[in-house]
């Protein structure tokens, strides 16, 4: 790649630093300019951050610590066969890196995540710890009404923490900020799909992931700069297999694993950080904003192994993602010890076999540092496809 890619490199480097620095520099910067500000940390996968934002809170996404933190204290508090992200997220708290925490929220996405609420509540006795009960029976006639109330309930908790109620107009304004963010991320993904040679998988990933750890207005500004820089980049398409990466909805694969994949493949779509892209369209800013968010969660949303929705059969959704992105193959991954991901992997594999889509099954752990074996698997997979497609 040639100039002005260097400008994009700078933006990506800025994002990567924020993503990899477990001291949360953007959060501390925000706290310096908001001395009375409160920070909400929510576990994966989806949280309506607008609700916290509207009350002046800074919502950040807990994504574990990858390999950046040695898990010591959390191992003594959580059973051995629980995934890494649950442990390393707790370790972030126990090691004092979340000393800004004012409210912790987790979700019933899996049994380990739901259990986390109790573990956090016992270990952070002065911090409110909450479970936001997103509905599992989303096609019930009563689900939207239930979820609207649940969002209002969490809004009341936020108001207790901040001393500031979630006002209707403020929530509409916040929805606007997050709509802009989602639109920018959609644009990033359009580039990945249509011209993946202009933006590497790792670049797109760190640019997206930075949203998890910084104020959303700042992230919008960062994405504007990145997208402008991509437009000026000159690069030519290469002979690489176009793949969809599936399995990054909760625990995140190491960035180096994505780099290994991008060495031989274009990841043209994925479910990485799907919570940031859960709402697939703009949420209406008029009408009742709580209701609008609840409707959007159910009606205009993506899919993942941790949400059952009979209207969105996951096998068909994955095949649709592959089709719409023009992918030739899929990498179906799952995090080690991730019950929903590992179970879904079998179903996905069967559906891909039936549809004749070549795919590679992978297992990863966020803290992995050695990729020689997986590199060989991916290269062999890609080479076999290149011969097949030749």
């Amino acid at each position: 790649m040639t100039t002005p890619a260097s400008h994009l490199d700078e933006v990506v480097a800025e994002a990567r630093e924020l993503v990899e620095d477990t001291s949360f520099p953007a959060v501390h910067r925000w706290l310096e300019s908001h001395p009375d500000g409160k920070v909400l940390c929510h576990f994966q996968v989806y949280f309506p951050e607008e609700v916290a934002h509207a009350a002046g809170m800074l919502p950040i996404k807990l994504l574990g610590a990858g390999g950046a933190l040695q898990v010591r204290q959390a191992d003594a508090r959580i059973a051995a066969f629980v995934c890494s992200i649950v442990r390393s997220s707790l370790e972030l708290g126990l090691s004092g890196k979340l000393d800004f925490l004012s409210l912790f929220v987790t979700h019933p996405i899996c049994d380990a995540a739901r259990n986390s609420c109790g573990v956090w509540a016992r270990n952070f006795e002065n911090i409110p710890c909450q479970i936001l009960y997103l509905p599992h029976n989303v096609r019930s006639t009563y689900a939207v009404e239930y979820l609207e109330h649940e969002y209002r309930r969490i809004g009341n908790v936020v108001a207790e923490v901040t001393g500031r109620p979630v006002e209707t107009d403020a929530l509409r304004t916040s929805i606007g900020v997050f709509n802009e963010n989602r639109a920018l991320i959609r644009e990033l993904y359009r580039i990945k799909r249509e011209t993946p040679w202009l933006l590497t998988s790792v670049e797109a990933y760190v640019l997206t992931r930075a949203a998890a750890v910084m104020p959303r207005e700042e992230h919008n500004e960062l994405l504007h700069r990145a997208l402008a820089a991509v437009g000026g980049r000159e690069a030519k398409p290469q002979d690489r297999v176009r793949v969809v990466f599936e399995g990054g909805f909760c625990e995140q694969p190491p960035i180096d694993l994505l780099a290994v994949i991008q060495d031989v493949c274009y990841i043209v779509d994925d479910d990485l950080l799907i919570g940031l892209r859960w709402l697939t369209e703009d949420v209406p800013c008029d009408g009742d904003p709580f209701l609008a968010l609840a409707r959007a969660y159910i009606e205009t949303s993506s899919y993942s192994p941790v949400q059952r929705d009979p209207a969105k059969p996951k096998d068909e959704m994955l095949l649709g993602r592959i089709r719409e992105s023009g992918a030739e193959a899929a990498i179906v991954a799952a995090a080690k010890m991730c019950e929903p991901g590992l179970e879904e992997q079998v179903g996905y594999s069967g559906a891909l076999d039936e549809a004749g889509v070549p795919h590679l099954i992978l297992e990863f752990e966020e803290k992995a540092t050695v990729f020689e074996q997986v590199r060989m698997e991916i290269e062999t997979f890609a080479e076999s496809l290149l011969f097949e497609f030749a």
Partner: protein
Amino acid sequence: MSETTATPHAHSAAAPHSELIGATRDESRRLMDAWWAELTEADESGRPVANVFVMGSFAEILRCFDLPMSCPEISSLQTAVRGKSMEYLNAAEDAGYSPDICGYVKVDTGLHLTGRNHPNGRLPKPSLVVAPNTCNTYIKWAEIWERMYRCPVFVFDLPGWRGTNGQSADDFESDRAYVEGQLRELITTCEQVTGRPFDVDRLREVLSEVNRLSALYRDVIAENKNHPAPFDAMLDGLNYMGICNAWRGDPAGTRFLELALDELRERVRLHMGVLAEERFRLLAIGTACYSHFRRFLELFHEWGGVFVVSEYMSYAGGGIDKAIEYDLDRPIESLAEQTLRSANESFSRIFYSQDWQAEVVREWDVDGICFHGVKSCRTVSTGQPDVREWLMRHHDIPGLHIQSDLVDARLWSDAQLKNRVDAFFEALASRKVALDA
């Protein structure tokens, strides 16, 4: 389940003194055989069957449609007790299922993949699945059957414990309305599956049986406040809750618990404990290991340790220990309220049960807690080490944390477990001496 046998230590204390002694175990075998006979007959005749789960079976609704209930947790557990689980686990792993997921799921999937021939009978294909969210794996499990059989799946949402800020009355009402709405939708689904109309008077009959069952179940658990405890909550307790799950809402289940209570009271009258000498009274958190069930119990019984209470009897007993009192004048509304309440107080309590555990230790005069984490179940196992540490720090309650699995024999490490258990009892013995002094 009914195949369970007492350890040699328990046998020695169970010499018959009256006709009641041992009657409950005989009756539980008979009822479990009858349950299997009904499932086998249903498979042969093509009668619709519902697959349900113990933490929210909705038996109250399903019984109104005479839908036999297949409980895969029970049938999976039974394969392990009979030493057969590995062949099904292997079949599922050969089909691509990871060694790191729930063993119950894999045993059941293996059963379905190999022709549904269970050691106790024939496992029918589901005509309907009712999967509550009380365990997230239930939902993934249901989706496996859905992919296999294209059967209808009703995921029943029971919003549970919300964390440390509590819930207002308004919040509870929102949850209740959601649950009531889903109950009405489940009724419609059952009507579609069976072709039968819903009969609210039949629902009243079933609710009335569950009211009696719940009261009896609580009385049974309370009998273990006696010294010595008349039953082991991980051995006999498993039979009690197994029958209560399979026969919930049926008069046979109620009669079974009446018999159990009679036997327990007789044992108390005769000062007949589980063991010849009850030296330590234990609270069990988590499940047992069913691939090594007898050995698991033996590790404790040989030290004179008896499980006088198990948290398992609450959540895996379908929450009927939580004083269910259905109002028969408003059956569906009341069913919604009570189901939600038991979901909160029983199933959800798993995540934050330290205060309940401390209370049990006081009320049942418990010497120590055994936390048994199993790889198969993150619902019950994830936070166990933390609770153990919390109870030691805040209440000076001794706790043992060990890990193996429900049904996967590969995860049982006998020497390691015995070392841990022995060290725990040695510490408890020293502590008793110190306290007595």
